[in-house]
Each structure stands twice: as C-alpha cells, then as structure tokens.
C-alpha cells in the first residue's frame, strides 16, 4: 500500500478491522452502531451468483457477501488468513494440504456446513468442464474428507498458489443438499435456479433480486463471525444494491441522501466529492493497471511489416510517453506510474523505479538506431465511448508526434475489440487489468508467459521467462519464488511489450455517517463490518 492511495484514518482502521476482525479497543471509536438498511449504488447488476460458473467482476466483487471461502485474503491483499478453515498445514513435501474446518458454521438457512459440503464445492470448482476458473485450483488431484472437521487436499505437484486460491471467490463453499434440491434436470439448470436465490455461510443472504434494478440482502442470522461488541456480525440488518448505470445519476443520488454509498466514482469527480462536507471519498488500493499493449509479431495480419517487432522501437515509444502527463490529464493526479507490469499491490511485486521515465532524446536515439528516424504510423484499437481511454490515446498521440510516430485511433465496441484481440488481428490496443487472485502467477500467465495466450496475444515468447514461470508455479520456497518473480518482472519489463500507463485506486464515496466498508485490492466488497452511525 502506498501513501498516495491511503484512505483517511477511519477508512484505514475500518479496513484493518473489517477483514481481520481486529478489535479497536483503545481507539476513541465506540463500537459500531447495529441495525439499519444500507443502500449502495452499483454501476451494473450481477449476472450469475455462482462461485464456479460466473464470469465477471459484477458477480465476483459481491459474492463474498453470500459465500465464504476456506481462507480469506488479508486486507492488504498480499496474504491469507483463517476463514471457514481455522488451521492448515502442508505435509508430504508440499503435496498434501490438511485443513481444519471451523466448528459450528451454518449456512444462512440454518443447516450445518459439513466437510462433505467442502469436498463437494471444491470438486465442483476444479471440474475442468465447469466455468472459466477451474485452472486456479488445477493442482488439486483429490479432495478427501478426513473426519467431521477436516479436509485433505492431495496435490499433483506442490502449489505455492493453493492457499491464495482457497481464498478466491471460485472456491466459495456451497450447501450440496440445497444445490442438488434446486429445480432443474442438469447441473447447469440447478446452478441457474440456485444462483437466483443463493445460500452460503457468508454475512448476508439474498431476500429479493429484481434484475438490473435492485438486489436486497438481509443479515444472515447464523453468521459465525463476531463484531467488536462481541455479538455476531454483520452490523447491518439489510443491504440493498441499487443498480444505477449512469455515473452522474449515481452521484446525484448519493448527494441527495438517497444512497449511503456509491462505487466507481469517475476519477474526474473525486476532488469535487472530497470537498462535499456530507460525503467521504475513499480511495482503496487496487490491483488495477492501465496500459497500452503492443503486437510484437514481425508481420501484421494484413501482411504488412510491424515496426513494433523491433525492441528498440518499443522502448523508444515507451520513453516518449510522459506518464506523469498522462496521469495528470486522465486521472487528474489520482493515478501513479507503474513500476512493473503488475500492480504494486500484487504479492512479489518488484519495481525499483517507474518504468521508462520520460526521455525524449533517448526515444529519438533509439528510433534512429532502429532505422525509424523518419517515424511511422501505428494504429491502436480502443473501446468507443470510454473517455479515459480516449484521453490516454490522444495524449500519447501528441507525445509520439514529437518523435514522428503517427498514432491512429480505432474506436470500436468491446465485443469487436475482444474478437480482434483473440484473433491477434491488431497492432495496439488499450487495456486494463485487475487480479482475481492474490498471487503474481495469474497476471504473469496472461501478460508474459508465451504458451497460454501468447502473452496478451502479442506474440511475445521468451524461453527463459517461460521456464522461470513454470518453475515458479511449483516453487514452495518463498525466497526462491520471490527471486524467480523478480527476474520474470525484469525480463518482461525490459521487453517493453506494453506501454505501462498508471495504477489507479478503487473510488468509493460514502455519506459521512457510514463506516467500516472495505474493498480489497482484488476488488471484493466487504460489508460485514459496515455500519450506519448517527
């Protein structure tokens, strides 16, 4: 976490308290007030509240209110702590993981959570035919029930990411009996029916869901965690998500007091809301990185030569971008320069200095060395209507004009962009990324490791980096793994296959009397310790 992104002191205390359930005894704050209904404005509704079969952040970021995982991420997003499992231990050279389950945990319908539910949930989550996330726990060979309060995971190989994976949404524990009793003939139909009114062990339970309008959750009377007052969490009686896609309307509603809080405040409006005496603006450290990505194959799909295949050209383009300028223009100073391709909140991040500090002379010299001193034209596809992307591109366009490079902007809608991206039919594209798991493995797999998706479909492939990545996925010695990721980041950052632009925080605004909300760097929203004061 960096000072720049720190929420104010109350926010920070809430963050520590909310996740780790640390008592704030000794601070001036009284125990949070209980009861009430909190109304939170979301920009889009969830689609499918199934831990395994969902696809989007609109589901992922709220599912932890309904489902618990065996382990929880820590508030800073870099470690794990006890969740539905209270203890865990590796044996057999890291190939066996024994988890002790918390006693007395109940689902929100009052039925007890059993070791059988845990086995069933993990088996479902790791089924290679189910959903998009099963590879996050692909190392599991078998899940065995070992008594009423213990589950043993047999791993194919030692897996340094398995603990982080057990704190990730797709391993949420579901009630096997209720799922199987859900309407429908096939497991997919049952998942649809169950996902309409999901039941988990989390702090809240679903009461009503009117799609694209409102989702109403109520406190789970059986929730196992204790609040600061020694009574069970959550503090709120009800949690209501109102779906308000338009940013301006959401902010107006918050200002009018019709909402207690709102997510995704546009960066351009943060300063204004910081100055509103009725509101508190929270900036949560995130794993979000915004960048431009290059195609590095020598030929484009239309058969023309691609200057971006030349390392010196890519480095020159990087040096020619004044990131501080971009940050000032697009994020109004709320972003910060990237020091590695992964965010500074990612575990094992290694970034000694901001990447490719602005140096026009160096950029010109590199282009000359590469034989492109007269410049060239390059095109970048971007999602139409996204103002931030457009700001970034027009700023970079002007900066590159200084070295004779003509940036052509190609706006299109997102499905079209995704299609061309997958087909590797592009020269550049605008993009942003947030991690789904507290581990550097996922982002490295997508950005840098060649075999999976050709490193962001760029065609970049470095044998040494690939070997390091594969080794890192089985390396259980933390020091060695750290060294591997240090080297991976060095190799990839030096290859300049992206233009790293900035890291930005999650922006959440609250009425002044609401405290205790937490958003972790992965994006998950935690409402269990949220309360509405006087």
């Amino acid at each position, binding site marked *: 976490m960096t000072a720049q992104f720190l929420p104010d002191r109350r926010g920070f205390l809430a963050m520590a308290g909310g996740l780790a359930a640390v008592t704030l005894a000794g601070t001036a704050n009284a125990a949070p007030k209980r009861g009430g209904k909190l109304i939170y404005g979301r920009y889009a509704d969830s*689609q499918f509240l199934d831990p395994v079969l969902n696809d989007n952040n609109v589901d992922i970021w709220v599912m932890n209110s309904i489902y618990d995982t065996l382990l929880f991420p820590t508030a800073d997003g870099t470690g794990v702590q006890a969740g539905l499992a209270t203890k865990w231990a590796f044996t057999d050279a890291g190939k066996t993981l024994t988890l002790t389950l918390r006693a007395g945990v109940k689902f929100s319908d009052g039925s007890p959570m059993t070791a059988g539910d845990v086995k069933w949930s993990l088996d479902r989550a790791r089924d290679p035919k189910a959903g998009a996330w099963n590879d996050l726990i692909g190392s599991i060979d078998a899940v065995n029930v070992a008594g009423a309060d213990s589950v043993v995971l047999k791993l194919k190989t030692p897996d340094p990411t398995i603990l982080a994976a057990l704190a990730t949404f797709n391993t949420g524990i579901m009630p096997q009996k209720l799922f199987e009793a859900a309407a429908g003939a096939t497991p997919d139909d049952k998942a649809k029916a169950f996902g309409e009114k999901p039941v988990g062990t989390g702090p809240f339970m679903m009461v009503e869901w009117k*799609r694209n309008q409102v989702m109403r959750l109520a406190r789970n009377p059986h929730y196992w965690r204790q609040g600061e007052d020694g009574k069970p969490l959550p503090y709120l009686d009800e949690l209501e998500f109102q779906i308000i*896609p338009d940013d301006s*309307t959401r902010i107006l509603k918050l200002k009018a007091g019709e909402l207690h809080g709102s997510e995704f405040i546009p960066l351009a409006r943060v300063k204004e809301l910081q100055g509103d005496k009725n509101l508190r603006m929270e900036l949560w450290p995130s794993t979000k990185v915004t960048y431009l990505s290059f195609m590095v194959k020598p030929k484009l799909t239309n058969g023309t030569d691609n200057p971006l295949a030349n390392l010196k050209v890519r480095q020159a383009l990087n040096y020619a971008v004044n990131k501080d300028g971009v940050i000032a223009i697009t994020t109004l100073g709320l972003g910060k320069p990237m020091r590695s391709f992964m965010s500074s909140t990612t575990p094992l991040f290694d970034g000694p200095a901001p990447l490719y500090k602005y140096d026009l002379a160096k950029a010109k010299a590199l282009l000359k060395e590469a034989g492109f001193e007269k410049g060239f034209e390059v095109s970048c596809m971007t999602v139409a209507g996204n103002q931030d992307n457009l700001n970034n591109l027009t700023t970079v366009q002007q900066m590159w004009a200084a070295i004779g490079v003509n940036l052509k902007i190609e706006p299109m809608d997102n499905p079209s962009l995704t299609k061309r991206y997958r087909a590797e039919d592009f020269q550049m594209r605008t993009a942003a990324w947030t991690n789904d798991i507290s581990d550097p493995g996922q982002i490295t797999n997508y950005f840098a490791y060649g075999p999976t998706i050709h490193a962001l479909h760029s065609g970049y492939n470095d044998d040494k980096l690939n070997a390091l990545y594969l080794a890192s996925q089985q390396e259980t010695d933390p020091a060695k793994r750290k060294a591997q990721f240090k080297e991976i980041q060095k190799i990839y950052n030096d290859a300049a296959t992206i233009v790293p632009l900035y890291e930005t925080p999650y922006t959440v605004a609250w009425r002044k009397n609401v405290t205790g909300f937490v958003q972790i760097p992965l994006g998950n929203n935690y409402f269990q310790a949220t309360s509405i004061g006087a």
Partner: protein
Amino acid sequence: MNRGTWLLGRLAQIVPTFVMIGVAVFVLARLLPGDQVSAMLGERASDDTIARMQAQLGLDRSVFVQLLDFLAAAVRGNFGDSMSLRLPVLQVIAERLPVTLALMAIAVVLALSIALPLAFVAALNANRWPDMLIRTIFQIGLSSPVFYIGLLLLTVFAAGLRWFPVGGYGDDWGEHLYHLFLPGLTLSFSFAAVVMRNLRAGILAVLTAEYVDFARAKGLSAGVVLGRHVLRNALIATVTLVGLHVGALLGGAVITETVFAVPGVGRLMIDSILARDYPVIQALTLVLAILVSLAFLLTDLVQMWLDPRVGR
C-alpha cells in the same frame, strides 16, 4: 371496400412484416462483429472454455440451422433463455416492457397536454410574441439532447428541490408513477415540440379553410368552431405524426432509462447488444416491432374515426 375488409387487409400486412423482421434481426444480430461468448467471458477465458460455452449455447451450429431453430421456436412463442441473465427471454421482457410502456404513456400524455393548448395559443397568435416565445422554447426542447435535459431535471427538481426521487423505479404503482414523472417529462420534450409545431401549422391551415368560414357564418360559437371543426381536422396529420413518433420515443427511452436508472426494455436492449445476447436482441426487436405495428394500426383507426374518407 368496407372498413372491416380494410382492417383485415391491414392486419394481414402485419404478418409478413413480422416474419421479415424476424429474419432480418436474426441476420443483423449475427452481423455484429464479435461473438456473444467472448463478450460474456471477457478476455481471460481460454479457447477451450469458449468452445465449450459455444457448444452449450448452440452457437457452434451453422447460422442457417440456428435461424430455422429460431423461427420454429419463435412461432411456438419460445425465445429461449437470455445468455447473460440466464433467465427465460420472455420473462425478462415481460418484467421490463410494462415499465417502458408506462414511461412512454406518461411521456405521450405530458407531451399532448403541453403541446395541444400551446399549439392553439401559438396558432391563434401567429407571428405575435406568444407564438414566438412558445416556438423558441420548443426549439430549445427539440434541439437539446435527451440525456442533458434528463440530468438538468434531475439536478434541479430531484437533487436540488427534492420534489422527486433521483432516478430508480420504486416498489409499488404509486412509487412507479412518482419515479417515472421526471423521465416521462424528459422524454416528452422533443415529442411535444414536434407535435406543437405540426399542430400549429395544421391549425393555421385549417383556420383559412372555407368550411371554417362557413361554420362561423352559420353562427356557431368560437369554442365549437375550434373544437369540432378546427381541432378535428388539424389533428389528422398530427395523429399520423404521433403514431410515427412511437419508434423515436422508444429510441429516447433507451437514453432516458439509463440516465434515470429505470429498468425498462430500452436499457435491456443496450445491455443485450453490448453483451451480444442474441436471444434477447431477437425477441425484443420482434416485440418492439409488434408494438410499433400496433401503434401504426391504432393510428390508422384513429385517423379513420377523425377522417371518414380513410378506409372507404
């Protein structure tokens, strides 16, 4: 040709229209670049996952087979499940359509209540200051973007004066009406402007007609002349305009519903197009086409009532 035959003829025209719209919308949805599964799974899904999902949704079959399936199922009233919401399409549309219909009804009522009296005032004071003022105001209404008017009304009447809620839809019919007033007003502006200008011109034209002079010469009161002779005849062209404007109102509803967070079919359409949710796009377009066709039919019927020459 009597009126019954005429009506049957009009109805018969609607059926092939629907079939053509059905085929067209199916083809158009698939001409959109980018496929539904990529849109749904985002950039992180593996090729395997995408292939599996495409098979699951039947998107791996030939487009022709998919089209036949779609038409056969549509005839039986089965439009399948929404790919992104994972709910039956008809259920999704049935939940949202009444919201948009209510919004449009409010907009039409508001637009007519604004436009009718003002059109009379403007026409009877043609080219004098009341006429100029009314036309200027409506010119602004006509040329302002819907989202801007919406945000302006929200800022002043909802966030500022607190007379109305800032967006949303509420839980019962009373709340629905309360929540839909501002979006309805927003939607009504450009519509009212069009109706007012058209009706004003119509009234001016009718006022100079010989039968109006005749009615006056008969000694009929000014109210009867205006109501029975002028309004009725001036309305004929306006009614056609109102009918034709239903499509434009639906277009405006898309933006209005987004700004005001109203969960209607306008927003559903945008969401579905962005998600390449083919079943919803197809069914919703058909439903809206039926709606517009019915509006046209209704227009014809009203015209027939206003102008007995129609349908003879």
